[in-house]
C-alpha cells in the first residue's frame, strides 16, 4: 500500500511503443535513481505517470498507495500526491511564483476551507531561505527569463511547498552548474523522509554524489535491465553507457 507501484506498464507515443512491460516499486521513504542513455524512455515514463495526454498507457497499472492512477486527469494525479519536477518547466507570463504556488495549494483545499495568507508566506519564505532563494523571486513570473538553475530551484521550491507523497525528478540536474546542483540536491535531501518516495531520473552519475540513492536502476530500450545499490551508479560511471548498450543490445 505505502508505495508507488508501476506494474507491467506499456506506453505509446504517437502509436510507437516506448515502454514495454516496465515494472518498478518505490516504497515511501526510499530514493530510487533511474539511469540510462538518452532516448531510452526515462522521460516518457515521467510524463506517462503524470498523465500527459500524448503518452498513452496501452496496458499496465500504476498504484499510488493502492489507487490506480492510470486514466486519471493530470490534475487529479497531482492532487493524489504525485509531483513531477520538469526537465523543461513552462513559462507562465504574468503569473507570479507566489500566486502560482498559492493556486496549486488552494486546488488541494476542501470546499469551505480557508486559505491563511500569512501562514502561507511564512512557510514560503522559510523554504526559500533553505534554497538560498532571494525574497524578490516570489514576484517574478513563473520561469520567465529564468536561468537553468533558477528554473530547477523553482521546481524544488514547488515540491517543498506541495509536499507530495511521491516526487519524480526528471533530469533535474541537466543544465546545472555544480553550485546549483548542490542546492537542488540539498532541497531533495531535506525533503527525504519516511512519508515520501523519490524517483530521481538522471543521465549522469554526478547528481548521485549529492543525493545518495537507496536503489539504482539502469534503463535500456524501455525496460529496467539492471538494479542494484548505489555502487551500481559508480560502476556505470566507470564503464560508461556503452557497456550497457553492448551487454543488452546483444541480448535483445
Amino acid at each position, binding site marked *: 500500500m505505502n508505495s508507488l507501484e508501476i506494474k507491467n506498464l506499456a506506453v505509446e507515443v504517437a502509436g510507437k511503443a516506448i515502454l514495454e512491460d516496465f515494472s518498478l516499486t518505490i516504497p515511501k521513504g526510499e530514493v530510487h535513481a533511474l539511469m540510462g542513455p538518452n532516448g531510452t524512455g526515462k522521460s516518457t515514463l515521467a510524463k506517462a505517470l*503524470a*498523465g*500527459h*495526454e*500524448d503518452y498513452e498507457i496501452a496496458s499496465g497499472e500504476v498504484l499510488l498507495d493502492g489507487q490506480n492512477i492510470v486514466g486519471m*486527469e*493530470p*490534475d487529479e*494525479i*497531482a*492532487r493524489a500526491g504525485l*509531483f*513531477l519536477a*520538469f526537465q523543461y*518547466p*513552462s*513559462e*507562465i*507570463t*504574468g*503569473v507570479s511564483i507566489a500566486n*502560482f*504556488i498559492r*493556486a*496549486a495549494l488552494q*486546488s*488541494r483545499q476542501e470546499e469551505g476551507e480557508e486559505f491563511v495568507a500569512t501562514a502561507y508566506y511564512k512557510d514560503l519564505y522559510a523554504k526559500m531561505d533553505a534554497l538560498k532563494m532571494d525574497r524578490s523571486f516570489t514576484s517574478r*513570473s513563473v520561469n520567465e527569463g529564468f536561468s537553468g538553475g533558477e528554473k530547477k530551484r523553482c521546481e524544488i521550491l*514547488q515540491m517543498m511547498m*506541495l509536499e507530495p507523497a511521491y516526487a519524480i525528478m526528471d533530469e533535474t540536474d541537466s543544465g546545472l552548474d555544480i553550485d546549483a546542483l548542490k542546492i537542488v540536491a540539498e532541497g531533495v535531501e531535506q525533503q527525504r523522509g519516511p512519508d515520501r518516495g523519490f524517483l530521481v531520473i538522471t543521465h549522469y552519475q554526478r547528481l548521485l554524489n549529492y543525493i545518495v540513492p537507496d536503489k539504482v536502476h539502469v534503463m535500456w530500450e524501455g525496460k529496467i535491465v539492471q538494479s542494484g545499490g548505489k555502487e551500481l551508479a559508480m560502476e556505470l560511471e566507470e564503464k560508461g553507457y556503452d557497456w550497457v548498450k553492448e551487454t543488452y543490445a546483444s541480448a535483445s
Partner: protein
Amino acid sequence: MSESSKDPNLEIDRDKGNFSYDVDYEYDAGQGLSAKTIDYIADVKNEDDWIREFRHKALKVFEDKPMPTHWASDDLNNIHFDKIRYYLAQGQRPSRSWEDVPDEMKETFERLGIPEQERKFLAGVEAQFDSEAAYSNMKKNLEKDGVIFVGSTEGLMEHPEIFRKFFGKVIPTGDNKFSALNSAVFSGGSFIYVPPGVKVRQPLQAYFRINAESFGQFERTLIIADEGAEVTYMEGCTAPKFETTTLHSAVVELVALKGAKIQYITVQNWSNNVFNLVTKRGMAEEDAEIRWIDCNIGSRLTMKYPGVVLKGRGARGEVLSIALANDGQHQDTGAKMIHAADDTTSNIISKSISVGTGQATYRGLVHMPKHLKGCKNNTECDALLINSNSRTDTFPAITVRGDKKSTQHEASVSKVNKDQIFYMMQRGLSEAEAMSLSVNGFINDLTREFPMEYSVELKRLIELEMEGSVG
C-alpha cells in the same frame, strides 16, 4: 442548472447575469423604427422641440447611411431593425432610494450586487433598466460641491444650459450609422458635470441592464469635467441570453476642460445574442487627461473604438483595453487618437484573448498632422490564442506627417500551448483553472492599473468564461 425560486417568472442560469423578469411595461414604443417612434419617445419624455428636431434629423442620417460592411463584419446584416423594440420603460423618473425602486428591478440589481457595491466604495450610482434609469443617487457632499450626476433624461430636463452646450459636439450625429441611430432614439445613460477644481475621490458608477427580449438599449452619456476637475466613472453591463438578437448601441461623449482628468472604466459581460455597437470619444483640452479602460467580455459582435481628440496643448489620452472572444463571438475593438495640438501624448495598450472559434480584431487609428510638434504615441497590441481555431487580426493605422514626433508600435501574438496547461495541471489546477490563470497572467500588467474592485470582478468573469469553454 437552474436554481429553484418562488417566482415562476424567473429563469436563472448559472451565469450571474443570465436571468430576466416578466415586466408589464407602462411605456412601449412597439417594434420597428419610424418617425412615429421618435415622436413617441419625445412625447413621453416631454422633450423640447430642439431635441425632437435633433432626433428626427438623426433618423434621416441613420436611414441614409449604409451599413459599414465594406470594412466591418457581414454579421451586421443580421440585425433586423424592424423587429427591435426601441423604448421600454416603467416611467421617466428614477428613484432616489432603493426602497422605491419597483420590485423586479430592485431584485435584478440586488442580484447583480449593485446596492452592495454602492455601500462599499461608490460615490454615486445610476441603475438603468432597459430604456430608463430606475435608480439614481449620489452622496450628499458631492451635491454641495455642485456635482451633477443624473440620467440623461433628467439632465436634459433640469440642466439644459450645460447639456446643450456639449451634447453631440464630440461625436456628431453623422459620425457613423450607429451614432446616428443612437442620436435618433437615445434614452438613459448618465449626465455628469463636475465643477472647476472639484475632485471626486470615489468612482461614480452606472449599471446598464437589458431585461426585455428583442430590445435595443441606446443610452447616451455625457460627462463634463470643468477646469481642473477630476472624476472616475465606471459602467457595468449585462443582459440575459435570448434566442432573438438584442441591440446595444450607446454613444458616450467626454469633455475634459483645461487641466481636468476623466477616467472611464467599462466592464461589460453581454450574453452572446447581443450586438454591441458603441461609439465612445473624449475631447481633452489643454493639459487635460482622458483615460478609457475598456473590458469587453461576451456579446455576439462588439464594435467599439474608444477615442480621444487631443485638442489642447499638453493633452494626454489613453486607451487600455481587454477583449475576450469566446466561441462564436467576435470582438472588433481598438482605439483612436487624434492629435490636434502640440506636445500631446497618447498611449494605447490592447490585449485580446481568442478562445475556440472566437475572433478578435484590433483596429487602431493614430493621427498626427504635419504642423504639430512634440507629439508622442505608444501603441501595443498583444493577442493570446487559446486553441488553434482562434483567429486574431490587427489593423493598425498610424498616420504621422512631419518630424519632431515619436510613435512606437509593438504587436505580439502568443498561444497558450498544451505543455503550459499540462505543467499547471501537474501542480493540481484543473484545466479551466489553468486556462484562466494563463489569461489573467496575460492581462496582468494592464489589470494592475485598474481599481481593485474591478480587477477582482474581471478575474471572476474570466474564470466563468474559461469554465464554460472547457469540454
